[in-house]
């Protein structure tokens, strides 16, 4: 959960899509799912992830750089997955680390580092999802003192 960027607003979004055809008008990025296929909660499921990957490989080479909305979507997914952890410390760490990592990589502009960071982020998201399940299977019956007094 280290190197994830905030893409600056100057990155081209719709301009690179004109050549993809009329079907792309409703999309904000070459890899974006059409609205009716998107998961209502907005969180990337494994199926969505693989479909995105397929479209990414099918799209042109210039589209390998993740768009701003993809990055934001990854950020939101990571935060949402982090909330599912039963353990207080891990939950807080995931939230804090995601925000700090994205913030520190805001200025990355080189395409290769951006895609590498995005790919790393995707991996971390998969890890977080798996571990949230594992931790919930073995969570202790009594919660941490920090959680109890907050409630």
């Amino acid at each position, binding site marked *: 959960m280290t190197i994830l960027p905030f893409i600056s607003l100057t990155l081209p979004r719709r301009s690179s899509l004109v050549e993809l055809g009329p079907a792309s008008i409703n999309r904000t990025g070459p890899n974006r799912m059409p609205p009716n296929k998107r998961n209502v909660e907005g969180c990337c499921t494994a199926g969505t992830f693989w479909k995105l990957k397929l479209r990414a490989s099918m799209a042109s080479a210039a589209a390998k750089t993740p768009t701003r909305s993809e990055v934001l979507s990854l950020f939101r997914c990571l935060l949402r997955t982090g909330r599912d952890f039963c353990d207080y410390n891990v939950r807080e760490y995931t939230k804090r680390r995601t925000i700090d990592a994205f913030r520190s990589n805001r200025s990355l502009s080189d395409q290769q580092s951006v895609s590498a960071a995005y790919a790393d982020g995707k991996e971390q998201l998969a890890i977080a999802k798996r571990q949230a399940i594992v931790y919930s299977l073995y969570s202790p019956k*009594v919660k941490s003192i920090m959680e109890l007094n907050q409630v």
Partner: protein
Amino acid sequence: MASKFLASPIRRFLAKAHRPSASWPRHLSTAAAAAEAASPVYEDPDAGIVMKGVRISGRPLYLDMQATSPLDPRVLDAMLPFYTARYGNPHSRTHLYGWESDLAVESARAQVAALVNASPKEIVFTSGATECNNISIKGVMHFYRDKKRHVITTQTEHKCVLDSCRHLQQEGFDITYLKVGSDGIIDLEQLRSSIRPDTGLVSVMAVNNEIGVIQPMEEIGKICKEFNVPFHTDAAQALGKIPVDVDKWNVSLMSLSGHKVYGPKGVGALYLRRRPRIRVEPQMNGGGQERGIRSGTVPTPLVVGMGAACELAMKEMEYDHKRVSSLQERLLNGIKEKIDGVVVNGSLEKRYPGNLNISFAYVEGESLLMGLKEVAVSSGSACTSASLEPSYVLRALGVEEDMAHTSIRYGIGRFTTEEEIDRAVELTVKQVEKLREMSPLYEMVKEGIDIKSIQWAQH
């Protein structure tokens, strides 16, 4: 959207339905006296935890990172495949299970080596830093027993180092225990003057587990190189926290531990320099695994976990260090603002920020610890907290008996939050003030009487 609002109350209802039945607490209460030995822990989501006669409402907040650290979820993710599907023995050469386990062990070895700037061929996996220390001290001295009969170490080393040295002493070797200053750092001139022609090993730990001071490793390495004496360091607490470089420090042997870097317990690694080669006599004999130095099947999941933990530590070291330093300041300032008579044991500048050992004056140590049951801290190290005598490390620092008894060690780590620090400050201050209110010694101090000038009457 509405489903989200319904989801949590539904989950809570289901959790209540699955709770153990109401008759369970009654069984324990009627048979409490007899059954207390049989069922020492009783957990109930409503009533909290009852253990050893103490009731706490929830799991305590963990501030004991020097004893052990929680497993990072990313490390657990790396380990689980090797507990489920990829369970082969890495030394089996004939089938896929062995080959994939071997690959995993070798990549973990490379990860550990990268963190300490060594070559993977110089890393030997063991069962922990204690075993590494044993191999280093006893192994080296037994190998060179004809020519070298002297070992130099410090008074603040870990118990396993001191015990190995005592074992060597019984065999007839000479051991010099260097004194430390009141800040916990050894005197380099004293080290230089204690080196003899027959000195076989100098063993100084990098970061002390009780007081957290960092020894001047580069200078000690230079002295050892000058006199051509092998230099061993116990870097269990230092790994992943401060930059560790075997070439800069000029160490020949280094003990590393897995569970101090958010890895699994039961694994460690020993760094053995190849150029110039240091030879050790193995303590575990067997089939010749790990280059003959530590025979026995290498535990693939544990080793993979340690490798993943080391790789993570390398990536996160800067971020963690900054954060832990700011948390330490917050803790120390928070306590010092509200109460006086607070002494930090050990140097404040040359210290790893995640370890804060404080003594509170005019307070009794055991009662302070008992009152701090909602905070998991330790007084003295985990190795010595079973006995009542004050820790030998604090005694070596020259801390007086009464202050040594009231020392508390706070361990801050990657997963500690600001709220936990604030709560710990609040609880500590409350407990100390409560105890001081009851203490007649504190009343006398407030009136201005000097404690040391009191003539205690004999009865």
